[in-house]
């Protein structure tokens, strides 16, 4: 049987998706990255510093935790990959550590980033403080209001938070503003994109930095079960970085079923949803060819989800390819299902998950197990940042 190739080509494509649909103004920046990122990442001193920061600063390896009560409830052996225990509370820091070291090697003096919920903004502000680099975070005006504690965290660490006031004033507009900043500051600035989106080589670079998640998981599974291959691996998808990291080393192991949970919001057909793989069509968003939610005329549709981190109108190009080739099953989880799953994990395991991660957990409810299957769920982040939402939703 011909083996489908899920990896990127040298032109930056995953099947029909990817590439670098960027204006000429961004070409030198992207070209500089493309020509250098693989070499830099492979250098021993880069690897030494990267690994040491992941260990001593981020707190890796993150535990693979056997959730006993959850396992009993669902009739399977369920492990949680605890990215929520990382410094700053989510997987996002794996990528920002990698990119800040890269930026340093490229001699950049100034860092910019976009953020939605503020998790990536916080993870970027953190590594900029660590390295003493100037940090400018673009955040939609609407999100700045919704996520005040994360704005405060970024400011405490010395970042400048710039409101994106264009368009719908949320994540996609913050991304546009960051790209515009980069166009206007082509020489001294590095743009740390927060997910596996954007022009090549970003999707590939970010997924490599996040691939530590599945690399560790395989080793930990051997310790726990004697085998590196589980039956199911689940993760949530906004742009798709925790999912790509969680899937990375399992892609070629066709025995492992990969499931990605998208945010259905109030329901896939409610008009208030972020379920891109169902609602989206092929097109170009933020520099790559992928699947995105758009009108018939090609205008980008503003998505909705109760979790700000999944509130994005597209998915990374590799996800679009994994969707098209059916290597990964994409499922839709509503706000209500995710909120129930948040409460369930809190009550049964004493772990309050980020609402994003709860979308992956909620899928367990819809699966039937034979009893001896091994399931890994990526717990991409912790729920501290969502307390306001929980308080309102559950009347706490």
């Amino acid at each position, binding site marked *: 049987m011909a083996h489908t190739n899920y990896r990127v080509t040298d*032109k930056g494509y995953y099947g029909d998706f990817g*590439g*670098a*649909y*960027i*204006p*000429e*103004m961004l*070409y*030198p920046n992207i070209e500089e990255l493309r020509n250098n990122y693989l070499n830099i990442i492979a250098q021993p001193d880069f690897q030494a510093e990267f690994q040491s920061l992941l260990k001593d600063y981020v707190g890796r390896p993150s535990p693979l935790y056997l959730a006993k009560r959850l396992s009993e409830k669902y009739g399977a052996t369920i492990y949680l990959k605890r990215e929520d225990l990382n410094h700053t509370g989510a997987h996002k820091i794996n990528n920002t550590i990698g990119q800040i070291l890269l930026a340093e090697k490229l001699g950049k003096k100034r860092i910019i980033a976009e953020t939605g919920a503020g998790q990536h903004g916080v993870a970027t502000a953190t590594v900029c403080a660590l390295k003493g680099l100037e940090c400018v975070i673009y955040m939609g005006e609407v999100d700045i209001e919704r996520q005040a504690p994360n704005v405060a965290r970024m400011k405490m660490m010395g970042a400048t938070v710039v409101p994106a006031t*264009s*368009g719908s004033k949320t994540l*996609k*507009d913050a991304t*546009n503003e960051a*790209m*515009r900043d980069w*166009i*206007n500051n*082509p*020489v001294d600035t590095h743009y740390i994109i927060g997910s596996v989106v954007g022009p090549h080589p970003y999707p590939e670079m970010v997924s490599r930095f996040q691939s530590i998640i599945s690399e560790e998981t395989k080793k930990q599974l051997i310790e726990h079960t004697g085998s590196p291959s589980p039956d199911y691996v689940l993760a949530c998808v906004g742009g798709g970085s925790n999912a790509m990291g969680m899937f990375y080393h399992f892609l070629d192991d066709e025995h492992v079923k990969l499931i990605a949970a998208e945010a259905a919001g109030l329901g896939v057909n409610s008009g208030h949803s972020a379920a891109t793989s169902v609602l989206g*069509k*092929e*097109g*170009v*968003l*933020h*520099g790559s060819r992928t699947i*995105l939610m*758009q009108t*018939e*005329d*090609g*205008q*980008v549709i503003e998505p909705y989800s109760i979790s700000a981190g999944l509130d994005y109108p597209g998915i990374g190009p590799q996800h679009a390819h994994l969707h098209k080739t059916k290597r990964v099953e994409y499922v839709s989880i509503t706000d209500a299902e995710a909120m129930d799953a948040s409460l369930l994990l809190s009550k049964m395991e004493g772990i309050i998950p980020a609402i994003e991660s709860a979308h992956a957990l909620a899928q367990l409810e819809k699966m039937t197990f034979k009893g001896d299957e091994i399931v890994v769920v990526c717990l991409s982040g912790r729920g501290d940042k969502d307390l306001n939402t929980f308080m309102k939703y559950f009347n706490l």
Partner: protein
Amino acid sequence: MNRLKQLFDKKDKDILSVYFTAGYPTLDATLKIAEELQNAGADFLEIGFPYSDPLADGPVIQKSSEVAIANGMTLKVLFEQLKSLREKIHIPVLLMGYANPMIQYGVKEFCKKAAEVGVDGVIVPDLPMYEYEELYKDDFIDNGLSNVFLVTPQTSEERIKKIDGLSSGFIYLLSSSSTTGKALNVSDEIGIYYQRVKDMNLKNPLIIGFGISDQKSFERANQYANGAIVGSAFVKTLTDKDDYLSHIPTFVKAIKG
């Protein structure tokens, strides 16, 4: 024959092109503005088809795109409006916009329609050379459309040569690496960059854009190039829905001097 080529054969200095967004400030403004600009002495026109996420544009063109979309402008509507383009407009017309709306419309269909209504060329800033060559070049050529690429002060000489080879029409020389609507970069280095590109003796004419806003910047651009493009500075004058046409002759005259 392609009207752009005719224009450049006839005129190689002080060419003025004006950009405006279709459907702004009112849905039916598109052709009225085009006619007024032609009468006022513009040499060719760039009609923008709006996109919700114009990441190479500054606030003025972002705003005009937003209003145009709210007014109901789509590529379908635009091609409907442009059916009568060549009844009154004789100067070259290019369409300018982002890749996504064009891809949704279907690039082949887009090129066919554009040629049918008498459009001469297309500028799509986020459609790079590689993708153009691999996927779409034949659609442009089959329909006799010029495709125009951008060059910035950071573009390497080797790449400029490649761009020149793939372009037909002209080369859109950016006055700096910036989004639209910033002030013109008048530093010495920019003069050196213009001169460097000029000295390459490319097959395509050079038209400078981004930051051209008045007679002074227009003249400066024309020291190095065959002409210049005014965008944001013009779009900015169109805010009044009830009277957006009357200023056009004075605006064009002020630029051309």
